[in-house]
């Protein structure tokens, strides 16, 4: 007899809790109309960025591919016909089906070229569509780091920056001068 009352009481309590919920605000986020807030450092899709002067930042140094724990980045430095052209990747490929979004590549990159941005919307039906080439990765902006232009810091000569024109550089030494 006692058990029946306990059973009935529990049933009513349960139903009451459920009923109360009719009037509370749902926590459902109506994605994709509502987007979640993701901080800027949230590790999502990988992009290749450009420097403030509009040239691609990637100098094909291979540090990102070396740092990647799953070896999903491969690239090849292009052979520049003139030695003072910028170095850039002839191809740059990321296999996103392997990428674990750890951000080691961004940490390794010395030019702030490769960055992870808060975008997770990469789902595909076919795995082969998760292989991104340079055209898929290169964006037109500077990404999260707005000011850095590697070639202004480096010593090499490029189209836009001659020897001695970088930050903290003296004009090139004149070897043939007799002055002390």
């Amino acid at each position, binding site marked *: 007899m006692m058990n029946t009352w306990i059973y009935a009481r529990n049933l009513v309590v349960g139903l009451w809790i459920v009923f109360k919920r009719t009037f509370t605000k749902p926590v459902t986020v109506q994605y994709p109309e509502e987007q979640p807030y993701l901080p800027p450092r949230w590790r999502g899709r990988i992009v290749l960025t450009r420097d403030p002067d509009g040239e691609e930042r990637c100098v094909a140094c291979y540090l990102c591919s*070396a740092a990647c724990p799953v*070896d999903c980045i491969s690239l090849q430095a292009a052979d520049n016909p003139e*030695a003072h052209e910028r170095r850039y990747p002839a191809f740059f*490929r990321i296999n996103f089906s392997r990428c674990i979004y750890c951000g080691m590549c961004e940490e390794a990159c010395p030019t702030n070229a490769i960055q992870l941005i808060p975008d997770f919307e990469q789902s595909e039906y076919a795995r082969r569509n998760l292989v991104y080439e340079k055209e898929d990765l290169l964006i037109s902006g500077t990404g999260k780091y707005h000011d850095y232009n590697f070639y202004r810091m480096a010593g*090499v000569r490029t189209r836009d920056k001659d020897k001695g024109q970088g930050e*903290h550089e*003296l004009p090139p030494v004149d070897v043939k001068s007799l002055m002390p």
Partner: protein
Amino acid sequence: MATIIVDNKSYTVNEQQNLLAACLGHGLNVPYFCWHPAMGSVGACRQCAVKQFKDDRDQSGRLVMSCMTPATNGTRISIDDPEAKAFRASVIEWLMVNHPHDCPVCDEGGECHLQDMTVMTGHVYRRYRYQKRTHRNQSLGPFIRHEMNRCIQCYRCVRYYRDYAGGHDLNVFGSHDAVYFGREQDGTLENEFSGNLVEVCPTGVFTDKTFFHHYTRKWDLQAAQSICPHCSLGCNTTAAERSGTLRRITNRFNSQVNGYFLCDRGRFGYEYVNSPHRIKRAVMRQKRHPSQLGTTEGVPQPLEFTADCVRQARGIVGIGSPRASLEANVALQSLVGPQHFYQGIDEQEGQLLSTILKVLQTGPVPSASIHDAEQSDAVFVLGADLLNEAPRLALALLQSIRQQPMEQVDELKIPRWDEAAVRNAVQNRRGPLFLTGYQRTWFHEYATDTYFAAPDDIARLGFAVAGSIGQGAPSVPDLSTEVRDLTQRIAEALTHAQRPLIIAGTESGSQATIEAAANVAWALHQQGKQPRLSFVLPECNSVGLALLGGGSLNDAFDAIRRGKADTVIVLENDLYRRAEQANVDAFFETAQTVVVIDSVENGTTAHADVLLPAATGPESDGTFVNQEGRAQRFYQVFVPDGDVKESWRWLSDLGRATSQEGGSESGVATWRNFDDAVSATAIAAPMLARIGEVAPSASFRLVGQKVPRQSERCSGRTSLISHLTMHEPPPPVDHDSPLGFTMEGYRGPLPSPLISQFWAPGWNSIQAVNTYQDEVGGPLRDEMPGVRLIEPVATKAAGWFTTIPRAYQPPTHQWLLLALSAVFGSDELSNQSPAIAERIGKPFLSLHPSDGARLTLEDHSTIDLVLQGTTYRLVVHLDPSTPVGTAGLSLVPEVSGVRVPAWVDLLKAIQTEQTRRAA
């Protein structure tokens, strides 16, 4: 031996060394820049500072440079002393003051000695906040890139280039922090050993330009041990690949052969592997109607077709090659039978080779390694142009001339590693080096005496020297005074030396030169000295093939011409480089079926009915025997694409296909993997018995593991081919060797034939070789530097060679056309590299000025020369070192069909502008 105390621990060291070398030999990490194991110490960079204490009570000590301090018994130092560590970090800080922020775009990154030393000293913070000095670069030619901003002024480049390699056009300019290392004007670096600058320079100032064109970081490279195929010296190299392209060649240390250095031909001549003229598919052509038939599953059609031809042949001719591996040659010999196997070299070369082998096998004098040559204290070279034929040997002789003056250095108690002091004490004194030949090069300025003469006269000089030294040796009676005096000087120098060396070459085609060299060596031996002999041969496996034996090319031509055979298999040999064009054409025309196994298109492959794509050296395993008789193993770096396979594998498949109907397999058909090839080679000729000892067999494992070809950081594995397919196939399995095509495997001490890349923790650059040596600069730990197959058994010579040629007197209107080897241009494979091709000179004919006058030719004029039926356009070089009555023909590709030596009536054969106009 001495005992030194380092950080309160005792170590046994060789007291002839300096402290730096002694510490490095014990695995103690002392940083350095300007010291180099082959070039000694100069004390410039101050990086190697350690704290030295007077005794065990001395608490303060003083900083000394370990590279300039002798490792005397009882020396007490500390490497970990805080002041020493702080000073070393400061040295890096000073070097970083002007160093550009280039690492991401610098080719040296990842194998940079400066990076390693920076990490080793622990300097991290940049406190210098002023401006950096910058430099303009120079274009230094197709081999080397120049980026002077990165220079840390270690002075190694000029010390190497000028002092070690004898070059003149690289120097240091300016002073204080504006010193500049470069040429006086932009231009190609002239020295044939300039390529070593990329390894000698500890930063990215001098880098490999050919590598830059397809740059890969060191950690991404798949590498394996290789042997340079471009001359007969057999320098050890490491060939490295990525994504199916061979990327670069670097030096692989071998204490007996190449040591730390290569020549430019070997370093930059590798692009034939990537050539667009590579044969990638097995091709079957109906005679003269080339068409390419694809391969079906299983046995490719060309193989079937060839097997049929072989089975049905009336007779078969197998032509081997001195640039193919031993195993490939043995495979061919096994397939066709020894009586049908031909060496694929001309009669004269074969004769010379067999004389050389006889001299080395039956005589009492051993052959010299390059290391022996470096240690020689008197050298007599008969007729070989070492700089162009065997460059690394010339580099060794530049060091040999330092041996004799070392006596005085020792008397002055100057340690031999104190390089600057040694050079100041020695000044311009040199040991005896006698060079004879028929073309002067810059190398001759280091000779004690030079003698330019026709081959017969050079041989006569050799015989005269032998006659002067040896009792009973035939002498040469009718010599000029000048030559008699020279004979005396040479004989005296050789007899007073401790380690005399006699070198002779085969380029002149002179049998007498070889015999004269043997007489000299035997005479010295008879007098109780310890001479060595060295013969410069044309190709990387000339000796190997000669030890195997086989008929001459003429005999092969004969067999086809007389109808005794109708099927030809040519192994890796362009016959147009071996015989007159008319004969080769006839040979190919007459043969019913021509099967060619080769890697790059050439004149012979164009005549193939069946063309089977052979793997190049870096794509296969094999053994070469160098001019010393040293058998050395090279390994496959990567699996080639297309139908490309090792030659021996083609032949073994062919053997199996041929014997399919017959039932049981025998010979080459039984070969399943490379070990089988080696075993068969070991029994193919008595002198080859020790081939198996060269390197561990394919089943060799360490702790059950293979030896990886890739570094642990080899990257990009999951995206390298993901644009082609999402499948990730397992890496290929190598059944032929203990090496693996992966990153996995054993990473501890290895037998030296299995070491491809030198690396140690903290030592990512080529300086890591130090960690593999017990005494830095000496042999690798437990080194197996190849197996010398030919050692003398006799205790004395059987008898002298007595055929002394008469003094050279050309018939009227006849000139002896002689071969002038060109380091860039004469070697078949390296010519395919664009960088090497850029350095090949225009073909020229060199004549003595008096002959030039006689033929009314002007220096640098252009002529047309008709040789053996073809007209060649040549430039005239009037050169007093060209012997009168001879003419030198530079062996560059345009004239590769010419057979030399040969008699030519130049009066008739030359057409100048005038005669052409007059005609």
